[in-house]
């Protein structure tokens, strides 16, 4: 996993609630067996509309996406995060995120920052009226703010999660180091669990 320290850039306002993963990446594009190459299909249906925010050249190169509540709801498809990553999005800032989507973002090193509605209203308005506004998210300081320093907000994150993000640590290799503890748990497990390999 890539390491994360700060994300600085323009923020594209996805001013909608409950954006579901079927919009972020439609099912017909889930037949591929790679982790990359989903960017061109992101928000495929909505991009048919010339007025859709991602078609606005003013937000080209945005690294942050602003959104409202329950972004990433629906399907567990991690392809949704891969598609956002393919668009160049490195951080999501919204009121709330769907549980599985949030977890998938963490796995790919895409930051999710949750802020109260009043702050999202402010940032949404800012990026709609002045698209060139740059935001900076500092994981170390746990802050999100405008680069001119006019507005800043603290956000919470589990310290151990933060540590892993900052170093780009791979969860699987860390868990494999806990092998002896997992072995011990398995030794104490009841033997009634159904086995898939016996008839």
């Amino acid at each position, binding site marked *: 996993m890539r390491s994360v320290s700060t994300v600085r850039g323009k923020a594209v306002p996805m001013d909608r609630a409950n954006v579901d993963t079927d919009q972020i990446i439609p099912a017909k594009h889930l037949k591929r067996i790679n982790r990359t190459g989903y960017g061109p299909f992101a928000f495929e249906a909505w991009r048919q509309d010339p007025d859709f925010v991602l078609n606005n050249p003013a937000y080209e190169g945005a690294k942050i996406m602003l959104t409202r509540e329950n972004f990433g709801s629906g399907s567990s498809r991690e392809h949704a995060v891969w598609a956002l990553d393919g668009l160049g999005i490195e951080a999501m800032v919204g009121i*709330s995120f769907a549980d599985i989507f949030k977890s*998938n973002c963490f796995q790919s090193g895409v930051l999710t920052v949750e802020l109260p509605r009043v702050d999202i209203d402010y940032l949404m308005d800012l990026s709609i009226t002045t698209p060139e506004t740059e935001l900076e998210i500092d994981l170390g300081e746990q802050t999100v703010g405008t680069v001119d320093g006019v507005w800043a907000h603290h956000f919470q994150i589990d310290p151990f*999660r933060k540590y892993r993000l900052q170093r780009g640590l791979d969860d699987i290799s860390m868990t494999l180091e806990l092998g002896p503890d997992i072995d011990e748990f398995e030794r104490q497990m009841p033997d009634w669990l159904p086995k898939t390999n016996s008839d």
Partner: protein
Amino acid sequence: MSKTLFEKVWDQHVIDSPLQEAARREALAESGMADHEEMLGERQVLLYVDLHLVHEVTSPQAFEGLRQAGRSVRRPDLTLGTVDHNVPTIGRELPNPDPLSAKQIEVMQNNAQECGVTLYDIFDERQGIVHIIGPEQGFTQPGMTIVCGDSHTSTHGAFGALAFGIGTSEVEHVLATQTLRQSRPKTMSVEVTGALGPGVTAKDVILAIINEIGVHGGIGHVIEYRGEVIRNLSMEGRMTVCNMSIEAGARAGLIAPDQTTFEYMKGRPKAPKGDEWDRAVERWRRLPSDDDATFDREVLIDGSRIRPFVTWGTNPSQSVAIDGVVPHPEEVPATQRESVERALTYMNLTPGTPIRDISIDRVFIGSCTNGRIEDLRAAAAVIDGKKVAGGVSAMVVPGSGLVKRQAEEEGLAEVFKAAGFEWRDAGCSMCLGMNPDILLPGQRSASTSNRNFEGRQGPGGRTHLLSPEMAAAAALAGHFVDVGDGPSAVPA
């Protein structure tokens, strides 16, 4: 200390890991970070996974990741694979016309073989939707932890198992370690009291619940469904309820195991046998929430007020009773107005239109929500010798090969076919529109599936969610009707 069902299952699966605690402390010391007490709720633990279900769409990248890192599957004996999401439901014996789909199925077959994972492959009669086959075979048992790279894994919660969907990176983590790093969710009790009225099904119960708590009301929570209405549901009905927990934002939904659960399970291929069965039942009887256990949030719903529901919008909370009308945007809270307006535009519906006056083009009966034998029996009972309305195209996609065979043996397939329904092979099909079973742009469907998102069943398609009975009745009438009104509501 008293515990909820969820807390009992969770606590039994948290791995006490001194190594993990040491690594965490070392990390915090190294980075000079304080170990904030307020972060306790966020703090991740290592959770053991008793059963890992894999399918062709969300697993290829996970197996590839293992291969690239030189890792192996830790417990192939606790892992089960099938192909369901993109398999054709017709003409399976012919070459797959979609090369990407064919490749994905082939990759699943190769990965299963290489890693020693049992696969219910495309021509295996046990093949089917991953959340149908687990319970059907008796793999799904009370008190287990079950995960799958699919958000509807919550279905298995109907047995009192803690079951939830995960992303592909987590699939890889489970394959390699049989564990997951998880923060402890909050608990929510949803109690449905009273008795259901005529024509009201488990599907209407869960649509009513989602309508009540909203599509993000369950974020960060595990729901336990309780109350008289839930207790009186069959296992199939309980699975329908738990299945759609994710549509309320909850990652998992559980129902306490009881005699109904045990009767459903007894004799299934993977269920315990003989003395082991008795010991298992004794263990399972200890799982229900203690009487004085408390939940972080409690919701009470009067089941006697639930009517057959139909969704009118583009998320599963946008629903109304069959005798209702399409809502006016001015009537909803200001924060929801824009999304209601967007939904009405997408769905091409005019506010104030009676739900009964909405005509449909397609009917889909199937999916992990409503693709079980009881669902097919209920739909067939409504048909009762009548015909699908002119201009309507209707299909039934059984949830598994075994459901299909049983329905054929019971004569249900003949009922559907005689009425003009297409009778297909098992898979996810038009629920998510990955295979050729899709709506054309502008087509309107009555669907027993779980999501009415824009384009879910095909680009430009318009989906209305409802119960199998209501879907069958709509197929015959060509528009929505109230099955609660009895046979006279459905045209001959």
